[in-house]
């Protein structure tokens, strides 16, 4: 298909791309919602949804989305109306904005910023503000506890996340997502996770664990621990407003996995050069989805940490290790990097 003429009107192209990404986010959320139920069911020796739509309950997530669309939107009388309405916007904007710099393919990127990596870390902090706002505005004790925990946890784990993302930045000498992917060209052992062994691998592991905390997934899902906090910061949200939080959360799962896939697992590069005929987007989404699967697997396998253990892991284990790791990678890069 000849799409050359579209490059004459880059703004239109960007808008088309943006709409495609939004559609992808919706499809991803529906699919991974269904997938998570099936995975959790099979891990717990159940079947999960089997009825809706026929084959293995494939349309269960669609039915749920429709249900939420027809649900009454309740804003508690005691809540701070304006902040309560504003919070879902901030959470979803923070989630979708991350997609703008994800390289789905050699040409498929919203904007290849030269500070791409830094932008992702910065814009994802918007979610924390949205969550605190939701928890505070709900005027509900569960919501407030959930929001306070979420803020403490997401803010703390931002430091190890940023420090481990600096490792690929040192290795490639750029923060542009596309250049980082280009630097990992060739066979799969050129991916950053396999280079500078074991330091880069350690950075990958730290990033993956800390990113679980960033997106409030088990074993770090204290902000919305159902058994103690009802639903955490979105206890008072219902209908579509609840669905927006849900969308943002699953969207963030994809963003953190996609960043790991980009900077450590070669992004849209094929593992072997002879597999290059398969489009880059397939590799990219495949790699990101594999990491999403691991996130789900961990969620249904591991118990939840206590809040003091959570802080302990971050400040006393991840932080010193990621600093030491970063300096060793720096030393390696200085001595043998050129």
């Amino acid at each position, binding site marked *: 298909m000849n799409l050359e003429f579209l490059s004459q009107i880059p703004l239109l192209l960007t808008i088309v791309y943006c709409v495609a990404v939004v559609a992808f986010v919706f499809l991803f959320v529906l699919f991974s919602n269904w997938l998570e139920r099936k995975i959790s069911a099979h891990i717990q020796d159940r079947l999960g949804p089997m009825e809706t739509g026929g084959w293995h309950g494939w349309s269960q997530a669609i039915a749920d989305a429709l249900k939420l669309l027809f649900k009454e939107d309740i804003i508690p009388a005691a809540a701070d109306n304006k902040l309560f309405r504003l919070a879902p916007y901030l959470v979803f904007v923070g989630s979708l904005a991350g997609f703008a710099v994800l390289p789905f393919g050699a040409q498929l990127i919203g904007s290849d910023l030269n500070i791409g990596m830094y932008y992702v870390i910065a814009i994802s902090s918007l979610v924390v503000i949205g969550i605190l706002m939701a928890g505070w505005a709900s005027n509900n004790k569960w919501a407030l506890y959930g929001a306070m925990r979420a803020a403490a946890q997401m803010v*703390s784990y931002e430091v190890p996340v940023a420090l481990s993302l600096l490792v690929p930045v040192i290795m490639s000498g750029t923060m542009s997502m596309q250049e980082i992917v280009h630097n990992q060209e060739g066979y799969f052992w050129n991916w950053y996770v396999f280079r500078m062994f074991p330091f880069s691998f350690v950075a990958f592991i730290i990033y993956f664990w800390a990113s679980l905390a960033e997106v409030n997934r088990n074993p770090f899902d204290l902000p919305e621990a159902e058994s103690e906090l009802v639903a955490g910061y979105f206890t008072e949200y219902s209908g579509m407003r609840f669905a927006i939080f849900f969308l943002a959360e699953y969207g963030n799962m994809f963003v953190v996995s996609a960043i790991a896939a980009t900077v450590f697992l070669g992004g849209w590069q094929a593992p072997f050069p002879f597999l290059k005929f398969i489009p880059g987007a397939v590799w990219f989404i495949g790699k990101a989805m594999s990491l999403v699967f691991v996130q789900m697997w961990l969620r249904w396998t591991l118990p939840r940490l206590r809040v003091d253990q959570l802080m302990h892991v971050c400040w006393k284990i991840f932080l010193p290790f990621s600093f030491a790791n970063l300096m060793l990678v720096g030393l390696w890069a200085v001595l043998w990097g050129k």
Partner: protein
Amino acid sequence: MNFVPILIFLGAAAAVVFAALLTNRLLAPHKPNPAKLTTYECGEEPVGSPWIRFNTRFYVIALIFIVFDVEVLFLFPWAVNLKQMGMFAWVEMAVFIAILSIGLAYVWAKRDLEWIKPKPGWVKSKD
């Protein structure tokens, strides 16, 4: 270097939320009543307000976070240019990180990283 797509993504995200909420408003019933609009507290009447003085346990942690986040800010340009600048830059950053590590060690020793900080007079509790 093009920030226009970023703006489009931010606008699209807000538009999606707005459209979703508008659809919900048009489709869903809207029959509020006082019982429905109470704050949820497991079916009981809410006791007091949550908008009270709240012991934010991570207050010190938030301060440490700001220190380390600013440090990460300095690390980004350093990381990009490290290979060109070589050993000198590495040693400089090592000194900088060492100074901050002393700060972390101090906070650690003062037990400010604990979620429940023991009162000053307490005997050393088991970690």
